[in-house]
Each structure stands twice: as C-alpha cells, then as structure tokens.
C-alpha cells in the first residue's frame, strides 16, 4: 500500500483544484472503505485529498422544509442525533446497522453512499489476484463473474443509500463550477458507475422533511448480526398524506434498486392498510426484484437465500409501515 501525497485543504475550491489537477487522486473521508482497498493494492492513489479540515462538511442544518447533513458527518453522530432518529428513523437505523461501532465512529455519510462496490474477485489481496488479468473494476477489460458482460457487475451494498432514496434525498455536489444539486438516484448509472466527475466532491445531502404521519423502516438481512455486509437491505417509506410508498433495495445489483412498479401500483390502490395489500405488494415487489436484480456469485450466498431473505424483510417492512 503506498500513498505518495496527503493533502488537507480547508477550502472546498482548493480541494476541487487539487483533484482536478492530479492524475491519480482520491477523496479521503473516514477511510474505512478506502484503506482496506489500498491494503489490497486495489487503489494506489498518488495523492489523497482529505476532507477532514473542511468545516462545512460536518454540519447538520435544520431548515423549514428540509435538513442538510454534511457529507463528512460520521455514522455514529447520525445515530446519536435525536431529531434525525425521530424524523428519519429509516436513515438512522440504516446507520446503526453498518459494520461495527468502531467503523461507525469513522465512516462518513458521503463515504457510505460513495463506497466502492464489492465482488469476490475484486476484494482480494494482491497475492490472491496474482496472475489474473485485471477486471473492469481494476481498470481492466473483463468481468470474472459474468464473462459476457461489458461492464463491472460488482454489487452495491450501501446501507444508507436505500433510505436516502426512499426519502427522496438530493445530493449537494461541489465542482469546478461551484455548487450543484442532484437527486440521489441520478448518481447511479446502469453499469454501476457514478455520475461524479473526478474533481467533484459530495458535500452534503438534503432531505426534505417527511409528511407528518410518515412511517419509515429499514431492514438489513445479514449472516451475523454485526460486522457483515448485507445479504440484502431495504428501506420502505410510506407517506399516508399523499398515499405514496417508496421501496428501495440494496445489495441486489451494481446500484440501488427502486421498486418503482410496485410503488406505482400502490398509488393506484384505495384501501392500503390491510393484510391483503401487504400480501399483494410483497408478491409484486418480489417479482419486480426478480426482474431488476443483477446478482453475482458471493461467498456462501446464493440467489435463493437472498430472495428468501428479501421476501421476509419486505413483508416485515410493509407490515410495519402499513398496518397498525
């Protein structure tokens, strides 16, 4: 593992400039995602641009219609914020279920959203990957999971993105032209890449305040109750005022999956707070996920297990948000 240079700009424009002018620079937030990758020789940046001195990135601001959470707010702080817990429970529960207490104390909101995708051929030591031609994710030209694929199929495991999407978060991005906003969904491309230029920095997340009586749930299914990446995770946000539901699923594709067809069907229903509706929606969601999922081979997991876990988790989530 070798980093050549380390920069700690105090100003976002300075940070953008360094990123723009370097050939091989990465943004360094908490480091809990990046450092293991560097240990494996998967990332060898020439310069790390640390954001820890950029003050505006660690604030949580409360507005009339929305809140803004700085991208460098660490996950533990998120979980300890009483207002967030009350207003955005799915987001806070998602943060609580990340890895371990030690990691949550360093990992950041921005880092969790922008975490690298994972694959059993990618997250391996240099020695293990010896003699293997680099795959797409290591700037190579092949995928070991799905040989016919023309892009990387590694899965996206973020806990926080699912509820952020379900809550309709908007990203604040700082680039060469200053501040820009982007709906969080627009960040992710089919194919797993992200709509962020090399010099652009995710600086904050805007969350519109939910309608009163909104019910939101986050569930992460995993093998162990701690430390593990999710087998599947999902967020369900139900706003009874406008009779809309948001259902977003992670760890099932190279990007988060919004079950938009199911959401759409829901908005056409009349009496929604019934056990039958939960059953119908669950079946619909299962079928939609079957269509949209893009799974790969994971260690000790298979499609059946992931889908079964999803089934149980979704039913539970729907029961929690729709039923009394």
């Amino acid at each position, binding site marked *: 593992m070798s980093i050549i240079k*380390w920069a700690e700009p105090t100003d976002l424009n300075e940070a953008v400039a360094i990123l723009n002018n370097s050939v091989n620079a990465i943004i360094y937030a908490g*480091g809990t995602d990046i*450092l*293991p990758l560097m240990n494996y020789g998967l990332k060898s940046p020439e310069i790390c641009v*640390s954001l820890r001195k950029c003050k505006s990135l660690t604030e949580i601001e409360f507005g009339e219609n929305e809140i803004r959470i700085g991208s460098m707010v660490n996950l533990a702080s998120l979980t300890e914020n009483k207002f967030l817990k009350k207003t955005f429970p799915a987001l806070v529960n998602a943060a609580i279920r990340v890895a371990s*207490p030690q990691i949550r104390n360093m990992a950041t909101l921005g880092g969790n959203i922008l975490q690298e995708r994972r694959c059993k051929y990618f997250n391996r030591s240099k020695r293990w990957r010896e003699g293997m031609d680099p795959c797409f994710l290591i700037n190579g030209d092949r995928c070991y999971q799905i040989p016919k694929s023309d892009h990387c199929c590694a899965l996206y495991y973020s806990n926080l993105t699912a509820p952020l999407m379900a809550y309709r978060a908007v990203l604040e991005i700082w680039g060469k032209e200053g501040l820009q906003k982007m709906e969080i969904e627009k960040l992710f491309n089919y194919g797993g890449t992200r709509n962020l230029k090399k010099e652009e920095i995710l600086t904050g997340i805007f969350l519109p305040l939910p309608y009163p009586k909104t019910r939101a749930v986050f569930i992460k299914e995993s093998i162990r*109750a701690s430390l593990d990446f999710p087998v599947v995770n999902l967020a369900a946000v139900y706003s009874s005022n406008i009779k809309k539901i948001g259902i977003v699923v992670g760890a099932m594709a190279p990007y988060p999956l919004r079950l938009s067809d199911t959401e759409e069907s829901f908005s056409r229903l009349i009496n929604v707070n019934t056990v039958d509706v939960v059953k119908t929606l669950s079946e619909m969601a299962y079928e939609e996920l079957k269509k949209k999922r893009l799974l790969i081979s994971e260690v000790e997991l298979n499609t059946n297990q992931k889908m079964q876990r999803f089934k149980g988790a979704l039913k539970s989530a729907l029961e929690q948000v729709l039923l009394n």
Partner: protein
Amino acid sequence: MIEEKYFVSITINGIEYQENVSPDLTLLKFLREHLGLTGTKEGCGNGHCGACTVIMDGKAVNSCLVLAVQANGSHVRTIEGLGTPDELHPLQKAFIEEGAVQCGFCTPGMIMSAKALLNEKSNSEEEEIREALSGNLCRCTGYVKIVQAVKRAADYLKKKKKDSSL
C-alpha cells in the same frame, strides 16, 4: 519515487508525540512500531476483528483503519494509558476478577471498546454492552465473562463516583 513525509503531532495517553511520517502509515503501526506500544494488536488489518481498537478523541476506532496523518492533532488513549502502575483501572480489575481474560490477545481492544461505552453510558444494559463490543472478536471466552466484566466495571465506576462525590 521520493516519498513525502508529513509532520504529525498526536497525543497518546497524555504524552504528545511528534514525527514526520509517510502518509500511508497507519495509527496502529505508529503505535506498535514507532512507539513500541504493542498493547494494541493487529489481528486482521482490515477493521474486521477489533483487536486494534483505541480511543481517539473519545471514540472507539480501529487503529488499523486510521492513518497517522488523519490522527494529527488527536488525543488517543491506548490500553497502556489505563490505570496506573500501582492501580488497575476498574475495567482491568473487573476483567481479571470475572475471568474475562484467557489468551488475552483480544483483551486490550475489548477493554478500550468497553471504556468508550462506559465513558458515554455509565449505566449500560447487557444488550448495549453486547452491541458496543460487537466489533471485537474473541475466540477463547465466548464473550460471556467479558460482558459480565463490563457490567462489574460499570458498578465499580459508579461506586467510585459516588465515593468521590461524598
């Protein structure tokens, strides 16, 4: 390729250490190899075992995932900073009394995670203790006595507080 070095000043167990370090030096290596503070252990190097846990600015962190340059200006407490030569910290005392130490390799990390918990919540329930230690692996003890030791330590600390306020 000439590697640039960066000046860091890190306060460890109350003592300020200053050094010019490579940017890729982890806090763990800094503690163990530069300062000879080998109480903090390396078990996996990737943040998945907790043996390297230290308290940085009041929070339990995996020192294998923190760069020394990231820790610049921070206050770090390691196992060596607990207790005095004459007296053990209540957590250390409780771990011994409850039989929570077997091979002892996970012990420093466990104790630091427990300390971070008790610093914030002196009245911890078993569930909270379990969760606070859920990032620390142990293969010898089965965790049973470790959880009980933390409870006992919480009682000691409460009593100490009460005694000192009298």
